[in-house]
């Protein structure tokens, strides 16, 4: 049980929770505030990560610039996805978003000259070249470590959470503006919003793009944290983790996202310590799946006893 007490392990959980905060905040903007059912959020994470890595390795671009390009490209992709699909009814839109993320994953798997293919970013510069995209990041992280006199894990934790909390604050403020008010009115009843002169389609596009940008920021941090990734890191399951986080924390509020992400992270990581019967009968790979079951049960329990999420408003939930 030594890992339970180790800072390294829990800081890892914290870093992942921070990345997931950014990732799920995109879903909160899209669904919690604008009512958009986006089941393809992971695609934007992938676009952010791949764009950054490809530009750094192949074009030798400055990593900040490359990261910026990743975020911009993800937002443009959101516009491209939204233009033909956002006029569809909500459920049809949801289906196209899953298709979109799966198409991108298959493209990333098969366009190996661009992405390194199924073997992942190690092959970015060609097979056998063992390319790395995070050299500049590691040296930046090193500088942060030395200046703050903290460990590498702690430095990463601080950086991820600084960006994540700034993003949460930005969404929090944005949703209190008249712009956010229109977004919420569209979530409540898009016909009513249109009847009052609001361009529903335009607002949905903006919400989709903003959420995509947040997903891409998460993708860039994901890439930096793990130093290697492959198309399989962007499977649909990851999108549903974001949905779980948003539902766990509570819908329609910005600051419930980091809470949901932390709870999710702890449950997800915590199930590793299930080394008592009956879990001890399973090997570690099997136990990895047990955590998905546990998360599923927690969601079901939450829906039964606390449908508004941990910090959502029960009052809001029952209004019709």
């Amino acid at each position, binding site marked *: 049980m030594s890992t339970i007490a180790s800072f390294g392990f829990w800081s890892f959980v914290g870093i992942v929770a921070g990345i997931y905060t950014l990732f799920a905040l995109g879903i909160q903007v899209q669904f919690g505030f604008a009512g958009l059912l986006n089941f393809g959020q992971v695609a934007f994470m992938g676009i952010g990560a791949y764009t950054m890595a490809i530009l750094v390795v192949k074009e030798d671009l400055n990593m900040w610039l490359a990261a910026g390009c990743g975020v911009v490209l993800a937002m443009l992709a959101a516009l491209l996805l939204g233009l033909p699909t956002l006029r569809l009814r909500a459920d049809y839109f949801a289906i196209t978003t899953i298709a979109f993320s799966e198409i991108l994953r298959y493209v990333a798997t098969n366009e190996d000259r661009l992405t390194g293919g199924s073997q992942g970013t190690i092959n970015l510069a060609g097979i056998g070249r063992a390319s790395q995209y995070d050299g500049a990041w590691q040296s930046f992280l090193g500088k942060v470590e030395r200046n703050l006199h903290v460990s590498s894990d702690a430095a990463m934790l601080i950086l991820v959470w600084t960006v994540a909390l700034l993003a949460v604050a930005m969404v929090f403020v944005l949703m209190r503006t008249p712009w956010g008010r229109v977004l919420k009115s569209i979530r409540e009843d898009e016909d009513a919003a249109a009847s009052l002169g609001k361009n*529903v389609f335009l607002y949905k596009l903006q919400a989709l793009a903003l959420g995509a940008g947040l997903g891409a920021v998460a993708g860039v941090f994901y890439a930096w944290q793990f130093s290697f990734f492959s198309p399989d890191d962007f499977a649909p399951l990851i999108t549903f983790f974001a949905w779980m986080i948003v539902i766990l924390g509570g819908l329609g509020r910005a600051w419930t996202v980091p809470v949901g992400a932390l709870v999710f992270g702890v449950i997800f990581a915590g199930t590793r310590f299930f080394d008592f019967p009956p879990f001890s009968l399973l090997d570690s790979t099997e136990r990895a799946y047990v955590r998905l079951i546990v998360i599923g049960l927690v969601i079901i329990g939450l829906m039964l006893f606390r449908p508004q999420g941990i910090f959502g408003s029960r009052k809001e939930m029952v209004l019709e």
Partner: protein
Amino acid sequence: MTAILEVREVVRAFGGLRAVDDASLDVEAGSITALIGPNGAGKSTLFNVISGFLSAERGQVHFEGRRIDRSQPHRIARRGLVRTFQVPRTLTRMSVMDNIMVAATHHPGERLNGLAFRPSAARTRERGARERAVELLALFRLDGHAGEYAGVLSGGQRKLLDFARVLMAEPRLVLLDEPMAGVNPALGRQLIDHVLRLRTEAGMTFLFVEHDLDIVMESSDQVIVMNEGRVIASGDPQQVRGDQRVIDAYLGTAGPQ
């Protein structure tokens, strides 16, 4: 008198059913015009066509001389033609105040570039809108609920809220779809008084669908009667009341004779 709204030979079918079948009508500027007819006459469908929520298969709609039958709902609303719905479209998980505020027109704070580059203009507009919203809430006696979720309001209060919200959008022509349905008589009386006052004071024009013929006859200047997708009669309440086609439409003819 000039017509503020002209509907010309509009057709709208659902499958084989022609819900609106070659309907034409004029609404005079500054009038209170009632649109009546039995269930299934096509009144609500026509409302949806006029407000842009349904497209017309044939025919044209002109508002203040400009063609609007190819325009999207939000563009029509911005031109000053604003509607309510039969069932109030209350934004339940927003405050009563926000339900009204969201209808503010020409608000730079509703655009991201406005928020970024004209923050003081956005703040000024927001203040102005809030003052107007407070007025409207007081007018409809909803001021006691301003901070509550709109979802806690009763059916009648929701009707009032919808009406207040429409006024916030600064319309010149208001389309009211069954404003009295589900509203108690005292509240209905209030609504009519508001309509009459707004017509006189603000020069607004009203077109409303209503089933209560007593209200129609006493409060409207002009009555348009639809049946089976067509306009079968129009004129002042007295004329329409005596029209044989109208009586037949409501009571049914005696059948083949």
